[in-house]
């Protein structure tokens, strides 16, 4: 357990060092309804302004550090998703955004996988339908290690929290 913590800490330091001030994000729509994309667009607005945090959107996977996937991973987009991830040089991160990507909406059938981590390995999950821009910012900063995860500590049981 101590080893794991130490390794996690080292990993976070390494990621911090690599992506601390500048993270380039490449988005991929794998069958989403585009509402998550609307929320992502809002990040570029003056109110949220992702640039002040050193986050940038880039269309070129070669220039990207992070692949952000929305949608329920339709099978038709499999090959394109894999090619996009393959084109991103290491070190890289993968973030799944929205309920669809997390497997919370569609069951697996012949048209969709239902969850993005069936196709590519995911580093951070951002829930929401859609996640608000602030949730997205939180998730991206968690991915780069600049913020801590909160949800593990939450129990959503008020009585327990009141007692504890």
């Amino acid at each position: 357990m101590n080893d794991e913590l130490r390794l996690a800490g080292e990993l976070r330091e390494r990621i911090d060092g690599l992506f601390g001030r500048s993270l380039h994000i490449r988005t991929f729509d794998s069958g989403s309804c585009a509402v998550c994309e609307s929320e992502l667009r809002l990040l570029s607005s003056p109110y949220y302004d992702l640039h002040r945090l050193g986050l940038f959107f880039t269309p070129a996977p070669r220039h990207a550090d992070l692949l952000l996937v929305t949608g329920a991973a339709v099978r038709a987009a499999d090959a394109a998703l894999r090619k996009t991830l393959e084109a991103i040089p290491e070190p890289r991160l993968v973030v799944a955004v929205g309920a669809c990507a997390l497997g919370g909406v569609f069951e697996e059938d012949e048209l969709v996988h239902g969850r993005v981590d069936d196709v590519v390995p995911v580093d951070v999950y951002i829930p929401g339908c859609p996640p608000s821009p602030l949730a997205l910012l939180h998730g991206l900063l968690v991915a780069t290690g600049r913020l801590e995860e909160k949800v593990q500590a939450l129990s959503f049981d008020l009585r327990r929290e009141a007692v504890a």
Partner: protein
Amino acid sequence: MLWFLRGLRKGVVTTRYPRERDAWTDGLPSPPAFRSDLLTPTLAGRLVDACHSGALRLEGDELVLDLGSCGGCGDCVRLGGEAVYRSGEFELASRDREALVKRIPLGGAG
């Protein structure tokens, strides 16, 4: 030119998140939080039926909330009365998918 002057009048509008959270963000859609002592199995069953997203389900004597499915619509809060509250949490990102599945023990009679 006018937009520039208007902008000067309005001042800086950018949010200071993550350093500070603006007050209005408390009203954002968020998953429910429960009073497990007030959560009866009957109520839990009604909540499960009411959830459109399938985020709530019953497993044994626990109400399972999958944050990955929840859209924050608030129907369960309106239905649940004292037992269900808006959690006000939106910082839910996690490295572990399983950590997004929360289990609430059922308490209360009936």
